[in-house]
């Protein structure tokens, strides 16, 4: 490593920045008073030349130095490992786990506060370690709540200790990068809208045999049939082995078409639209409906079941708003994509309606927009959380 004096000014500045990033000291209120008192004793010693004043000054300086040395020992040689959920939803708490190990052989770490560093800012997670013995480790879990959709990056971990005297707070930074996706908030949908959503596509659905609970047909038992499906009442009545066939449940597909074009001033509405989309996905997936998500001019995504629905949520998390100038292109691309789709009903979701292209919107089963469903989009009016 080159000595600091030989460094170019830019290197030196970078070195200082790194240094200040990794170690920092904040003086507490008690520490400020202690420093002022030390200064006063120092002035008295210099003014009087009294060596016993110098002795007191030396004592106070030694406490300051001891404080620095011990706090440095506390925050040194720690090891962190964070376990995060793959994704989370806006305003919905998720549990993160932090494994903390003291790698020092003889010196414990005392009075540690552990914070996440997110975008350069310290975020207190309420993790406090009173004592971590040498070569020991501990596991702490905490709640993680994100308030914005998108990528949530954690730069690292900040360790703060006021040990031993509470005069200073030594801060150390441990790089421990992690990124997770924050999906749009899932909001409760109004009951009226739920009925409306339930009815969509039912008229298009054809009754067919399949797994389910509703009765589809009764027929005579054939070799190879599941004996558990025998309908004993009918068998007794007809004196023949009769078997019960069930109707397949919710096997239809719904397409969610999300118009990503929206002017800048409608950004909040756009985010609300994404939330509604996420809530619809959640609603339908829980009912076993297969989903197709079409977001603007992007390729569509398919999901069948909760496992695959994660991809849809992730796509919504990363969905970017397109400017109004791209309206024509996006409308055409969406019309083309919907034209190709032949299966199931379509729900059109938009935060903003382009009058010029209104007629170009293909025929859909349900259109959800601030104009048509004001209560759903207007959080204040609907009483739903924003």
């Amino acid at each position, binding site marked *: 490593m080159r000595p600091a004096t030989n460094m170019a000014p830019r290197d030196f500045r970078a070195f200082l920045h790194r240094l200040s990033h990794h170690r920092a000291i904040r003086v507490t209120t008690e520490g400020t*008073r202690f420093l002022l008192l030390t200064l006063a004793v120092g002035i008295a*010693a210099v*003014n*009087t030349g009294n060596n016993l004043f110098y*002795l007191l000054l030396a004592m106070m300086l*030694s406490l300051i130095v001891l404080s620095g040395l*011990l706090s440095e020992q506390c925050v040194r040689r720690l090891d962190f490992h964070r376990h995060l959920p793959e994704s989370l939803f806006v305003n919905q708490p998720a549990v993160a786990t932090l494994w903390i190990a003291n790698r020092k052989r003889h010196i414990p770490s005392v009075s540690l506060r552990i914070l996440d560093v997110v975008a350069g800012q310290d975020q207190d997670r309420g993790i406090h370690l009173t004592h971590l013995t040498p070569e020991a480790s501990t596991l702490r879990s905490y709640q993680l709540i994100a308030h914005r959709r998108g990528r949530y990056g954690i730069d690292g971990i900040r360790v703060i200790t006021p040990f031993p005297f509470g005069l200073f707070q030594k801060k150390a930074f441990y790089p421990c990068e992690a990124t997770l996706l924050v999906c749009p908030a899932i909001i409760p949908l109004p009951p009226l809208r739920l009925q409306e959503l339930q009815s969509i596509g039912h008229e298009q659905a054809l009754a067919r045999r399949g797994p389910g609970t509703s009765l589809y047909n009764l027929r005579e038992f054939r070799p190879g049939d599941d004996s558990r499906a025998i309908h004993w009442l009918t068998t007794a009545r007809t004196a023949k082995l009769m078997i019960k066939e069930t109707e397949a449940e919710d096997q239809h597909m719904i397409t969610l078409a999300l118009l990503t074009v929206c002017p800048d001033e409608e950004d909040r509405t756009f985010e609300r639209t994404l939330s509604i989309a996420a809530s619809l996905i959640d609603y339908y997936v829980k009912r076993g409906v297969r989903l197709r998500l079409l977001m603007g001019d992007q390729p569509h995504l398919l999901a069948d079941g909760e496992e695959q629905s994660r991809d849809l949520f992730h796509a919504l998390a990363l969905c970017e708003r397109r400017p109004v100038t791209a309206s024509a292109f996006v409308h055409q691309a969406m019309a083309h994509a919907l034209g190709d789709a032949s299966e199931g009903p379509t729900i059109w979701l938009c935060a903003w309606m382009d009058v010029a292209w209104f007629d170009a919107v293909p025929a859909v089963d349900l259109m959800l927009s601030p104009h048509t469903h004001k209560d759903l989009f207007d959080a204040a009016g609907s009483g739903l959380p924003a």
Partner: protein
Amino acid sequence: MPLDQAFRLSSILLAAAGFASLTLAIALPPWLLVVAGGAFTMALLRVRHPAAISDTMHHFRLSALTWNIFLLLAFAGFWIDLLLVSQEVLPAGIHFLVLLLVNKLSNLDLRRDFLHLYAISLIALLASAALTTQIWYAPFFFIYLIIGVWTLLLHHLVQEQEEQVGLSDHVPPATTPGTCFPRLTIRFFWTTNVMAAVAFGFTLLFFFSIPRVGVGFFQHDQGESLRTTGFSEQVDLGVIGPVKQDPSIVMRVELPDRVGHELRQEPLYLRGVAYNRYDGKSWSNSLPQRRMLTEVPEGTFSLRTPGTKPQATARPLRQDILLEPLDTAVLFGAPLLTSVKGNFLSVQSDLTGSFHLPYPLHTRIQYTAYSSSPGLNTTEKTASALLYPDFILRHYLHTPDVNPQIVDLARQITQPATSVMQAVSLVHTHLLTSYRYSLDVPSLQSSHPLDDFLLTRKTGYCEHYATAMVVLLRTVGIPARLVTGFLATEWNEFGGYYTVRQRDAHAWVEVYFPQSGWLTIDPTPPAPGAVGPTWWHAATSAMDSMRLKWDRLFVHYSAHDQFTVVQGIREGGEAVRAGLYETMSALSAQALAIIDRLVTNLTPAGIPHHAVMLLLLIIAAYAGITLLRRHKSTPSRQNTCSAQQQTVIALYTDMVHSCARQGIVKPASNTPQEFLHEIRERWSEAWPIVESVTQLYARVRFGEAPLTAEEVTTAEHDVRRLRVLSRSVRAAPRSSH
């Protein structure tokens, strides 16, 4: 003991340490002592029996308004004290401080009350430092430091504990139900004490290294000066007697150039003032003219005493003297002083060779004195008559109206003498043998004290003996003078110095010889000393030695001492460097000589000598480099992996590099499994390969499973496939362009 109880106890002890040091430094009024003592007792009882005392206090607890009125009254009392009673800021301020202490001890409820208590205790310690320089300050300071570390640490831990359980700023009593504090452990006890010891070490380090740049704007004299007798312009015969019982320490003298056992039995004369005129009842100096001594080099004031001839061979006696504050400006030193070195503005000397400061200093002073003690010239030892200069004859042969009986006595004593020196010896012997030493002599009331001593009572002490000898010698024409000073006989074994007390005040005689100068002669027989218990003497000596060290190292530590230490270190470093250089030079010379002989013996005839030397050098360099490489390749503690593990680590590293080329960098904080998950998300085609290598890596590296040859081959094949895949993926965008 629970944490919070220990915290309260240490807080009160800290305040007690500050208060105790204050009590020793200044005499506090008894009522204030009683009030403060009561407050401490109550505070300690609250720690020990919190429930009982809290119940009792509940009935007698004063309201906040009452305490505020108490504080206002105390502040008014401060002004009354300042203006009417003590009429000084420091005592009045200290009285007020003690009242504040009482207030805080009685109201230790909130956290800020404890912080105020610490500040008050620190100010108390500061005030006692301003008032005293006595050695008792040292143990109090040490105790304060130890308790201070304990208190600050406990304060922090209790605060942290309370924050965790969500308590407010209010500090609950020790046994508040529901508040559970951990108990102190033995480990905590010793750890805290080690911390305190380290703090003490740092304190000493800082104390000695903080530059002494005191400007002394508000410096004031410390304490009162010691009253001395026998060093004024005129000294009545018999004034020394009353102080001969006073054990107060006047000075301490070290002789750095002499070995301890040389000095143990040898008394040291410390010359103060010389007198040449005796009027029958008192001594005075008729040569009071003083001149300023030249300061060359800086801080050293030199003198050649008029009438003395410095001997070229005489080795000056160096004395390091720590002089207590005295009411005289005389500088003491062994006869005869030639120079003094110290932090003085100026030094003066009179014609009798005495050294003076311009005015008495009311602080301890430390200086180094250099003295040359002349020996008697062999010629003058046997000379029957001496030729004295006029100056000497004029000023040192004067006698008052001496009783004719004394004149007869002088002639009678010196009649057998064949030389001047023999006459001096005869007088000296006569006084030693014919008179009795006693301090019980009412000389000051007598109108003819010398007659009483020589002719009537024949009992006296040093002044009488010295006066008698001077008068007897002058009567027979030998110039002499009386000298007052101290006779140091108390050797401190522990400190290696003389302790000089008031009771060591002494008077003796200086006799003049034209070639040899002034010769010191003491006609006083040794005083019958009171022998105390040996252990007591040893204890007082040890205590005094500690006191001296305290004074030297702490109270009078100065910029000059710092400079001396730095210079010593530098000189020591240079000496070590020079020694090392010499040793290395000698070793290398020997090694070269051996190699040269070896080369000469081994070199076959006809081969140049230098060629063999060069070859040897090359071989040595090669061996050195090989050794260095081997040392570097020695596995460190972190790299103590088996060969199999290293193989799998290398394969895994290759795989990670291939992924990095694809833009998927593995952060150091990510585990292999997390990295695998990331690959699945971002580069699904590579996932099966990466998964296979990762599983193998985890199994062998961390599980220490054995690695088969087939597994190695498969893993190498996988890594190659990954590399190809990476290249093909990177080539694809290029081809699409």
